[in-house]
Every structure is written in structure tokens, then in C-alpha cells.
């Protein structure tokens, strides 16, 4: 398995892992709104990441022969649709005081943390490989 496939597999698995662990720790250790923030935030970004992956693979698989503008349009329109839906959900959560904003921000950071972890892991692997 090459580095790219390894990173994507790690990020996908790590997203779900952080979602489950973060939510469980949140419900055990923190007040209800904070835990709900972690749950909804991490679920939202994890689903968003899956949809983004699906959109990109679909667009890039049929990329050859198509003008760049049409692919760009499809990806950007889907991005704005996803963003609008996320916006409505986050708006409802914050407006209704269902979640604590700090918990929500923590939950929304799941994908970023996964990507940082994957990059650090690969970098460490590279450094140790060169050292040996």
C-alpha cells in the first residue's frame, strides 16, 4: 500500500475512532450540552469528509476528456450545498442552546486532528526510515 492510500485509510479510520472516543469521554466527563456538542460536531464533519471523498473520487474518475471548468463547477456546487446544510444544522444547534459552542468546536476539529495525526505519523516514519 503506498503512502497516499495509507494516509487516507488512517484518516478515515481515525475520524470514526475519535468520534466514538470523544463522544464517550464527553458523556462521561463533561456536562450534557458540551458532550452533545462533541457528538454533533464530530458526526457532522465525519459525514462531510465522507461526502467530500465520494464527490472527489467520482469527479476525478471521470476527469479525463472533460473541461476543467465543468469539474470545478460540480465540486464547488456540491461544496456549497454541503456547507449550507452544515450551516443550517449548526445554526439550529447553537440557536436552540442544544450544544455548548466550545464542545461543538472540539467536535468539529476531529478531521483536522486526524489529518495532523496522519501527517505526523508519516513524517515520523520517514525520519526514522532515513535515520536507519
Amino acid at each position, binding site marked *: 500500500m503506498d503512502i*497516499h492510500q495509507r494516509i487516507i485509510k488512517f484518516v478515515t479510520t481515525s475520524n470514526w475512532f475519535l468520534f466514538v472516543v470523544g463522544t464517550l469521554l464527553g458523556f462521561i466527563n463533561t456536562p450534557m450540552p458540551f458532550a452533545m456538542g462533541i457528538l454533533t460536531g464530530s458526526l457532522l464533519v465525519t459525514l462531510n469528509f465522507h461526502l*467530500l471523498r465520494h464527490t472527489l473520487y467520482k469527479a*476525478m474518475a471521470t476527469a479525463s476528456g472533460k473541461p476543467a471548468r465543468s469539474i470545478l463547477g460540480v465540486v464547488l456546487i456540491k461544496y456549497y450545498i454541503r456547507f449550507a446544510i452544515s450551516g443550517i444544522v449548526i445554526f439550529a444547534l447553537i440557536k436552540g442552546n442544544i450544544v455548548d459552542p466550545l464542545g461543538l468546536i472540539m467536535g468539529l476539529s476531529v478531521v483536522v486532528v486526524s489529518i495532523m495525526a496522519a501527517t505526523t505519523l508519516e513524517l515520523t516514519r520517514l525520519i526514522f526510515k532515513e535515520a536507519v
Partner: protein
Amino acid sequence: MDFFTACVWAAGVAIGIAAFGCGIGQGMGVNGAVQGIARNPESSGKVTVTLLIGLAMIESLCIYALVVALILIYAHPQAAEFAKIVAGH
């Protein structure tokens, strides 16, 4: 301009700039990726994975901006204190 009006203005400007910047960033990323794949179709898998990671990072920035904007409007930490001050005057 009173405190609450300023908050709404700040939230609107913040999310506007963030969405605009993220849209441009994503557009440039996808444009580069598509051109790369067009020149070298064998690199499609690698380019797509790198693009996916990049787009996910850009998108999360915009979502952060959205959350901060909504916090400014609906869950400002000092809103109650300012409301008391306004009511006192």
C-alpha cells in the same frame, strides 16, 4: 453603533470573507489537480488523495468561521452583561 449591532456586523463580515476565501482556495486546488490529472492521468489516485486532504482542511476553516459567527450572534459570552448595562441606562 451599539454592541449587538456590531456583533451582527462582525459575524456577517467574518463568514462572508471566510466563505469567499475558502471558495477561492478550493477552486485553485481543484483547478491544479484537474490540470495535473489531464497532463498525467496515471497520477489520478495520488492527486485525488492529496486534494481530498487539502480540501478537508480548507473546509474545516470555513466551518470554524461559521461557528464563530453564530457564537457572536446567538451565544456571545458577554451578551447578558451588555444587556444589563443597556437596560440600566
